[in-house]
């Protein structure tokens, strides 16, 4: 019964979203604003994961929704808006990443307290900060693939659809990105150890 109720709720939500999309297409700004408010958190979070700072992420998110406004007639009603937003967010973040200032060096993340090993000494927040900054050093496609797969939790096929690539290509990008990330971080920790 719960599954049926959940399915019904999803159906209603999809129809409601579709209705909102139809109204937005007819020029109803209130409907369009409703769509933006519904998705802004997801888009901003993904942009922040890809870009690493809130200001750039907010700029990218605005560009995504303005692009949605300009191209709303080309959005397929039968398909969900989510994958389209993911794809456009990745593209917007990639463009912004090319134009923006270079990232901060990894070395300025300080180890707060000495421990048995450098890995253990790093506080949780610092480990995340290091990993996030190391992401900046990856090629854009690999960075997008690993963010979508390992942080956003999409399946490999969903990542492939979002990036417009084959699953084989995405698996290759993900494995390459993970190996490079580990080398970057291991290299940094080795330098600290010596």
């Amino acid at each position: 019964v719960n599954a049926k109720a959940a399915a019904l709720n999803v159906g209603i939500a999809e129809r409601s979203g579709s209705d909102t999309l139809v109204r937005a297409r007819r020029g109803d700004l209130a409907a369009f604003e409703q769509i933006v408010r519904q998705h802004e958190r997801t888009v901003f979070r993904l942009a922040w994961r890809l870009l690493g700072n809130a200001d750039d992420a907010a700029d990218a998110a605005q560009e995504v929704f303005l692009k949605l406004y300009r191209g709303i007639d080309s959005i397929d009603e039968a398909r969900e808006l989510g994958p389209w937003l993911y794809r456009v967010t990745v593209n917007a973040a990639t463009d912004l990443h090319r134009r923006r200032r270079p990232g901060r060096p990894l070395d300025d993340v300080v180890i707060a307290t000495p421990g048995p090993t450098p890995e253990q000494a790093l506080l949780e927040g610092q480990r995340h900060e290091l990993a996030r900054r190391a992401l900046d050093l990856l090629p854009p496609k690999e960075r997008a693939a690993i963010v979508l797969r390992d942080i956003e939790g999409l399946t490999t096929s969903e990542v492939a659809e979002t990036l417009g690539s084959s699953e084989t290509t995405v698996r290759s990008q993900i494995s390459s990105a993970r190996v490079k990330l580990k080398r970057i971080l291991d290299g940094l920790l080795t330098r600290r150890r010596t």
Partner: protein
Amino acid sequence: MTCAERERELALYAGGELSNGDLEGHLDRCARCREYVDGMRSLLGDLSLGDPPALPPIATAVMRRIRRRRYGWAALAASAAAASVLIAAIVGMVSRPVATMSYALPMPAPPAVTVVQRAVPEAKRRLVRQVARPKPVPPAESVVVKLVTDDPNVIIYWITD
């Protein structure tokens, strides 16, 4: 295949995208590769750490930009339309010769009136009163000039005696 050559396979294995007997057999025997997989899993966990910052007012900013774009153009178009109507009206007035002529026509001066009084005897005055009782004055012959302008709603009549 060396351990270094297995790194990409191990990376996929750590993320759960790859599982095969050959690789798992190697992991059972190789402590270095097991450590690599553990390190990779720890790294993937670190990537997910940290909450995004507070949501900035994205929707508000987007809607402001859209409204400015949409109504900004509408306001500009309305101003342009109003300006063109005004210009057309001014040009029309200047180039309307009939209307100009109507303002230029000279108006006739009113006729001068002279009152003359004389001393007249009472009897004669009575007679004069009878005789001089106002007679209906035949109306002077009037001239009516009708000026037709370009505008059908504006017709100018000039009436003179």
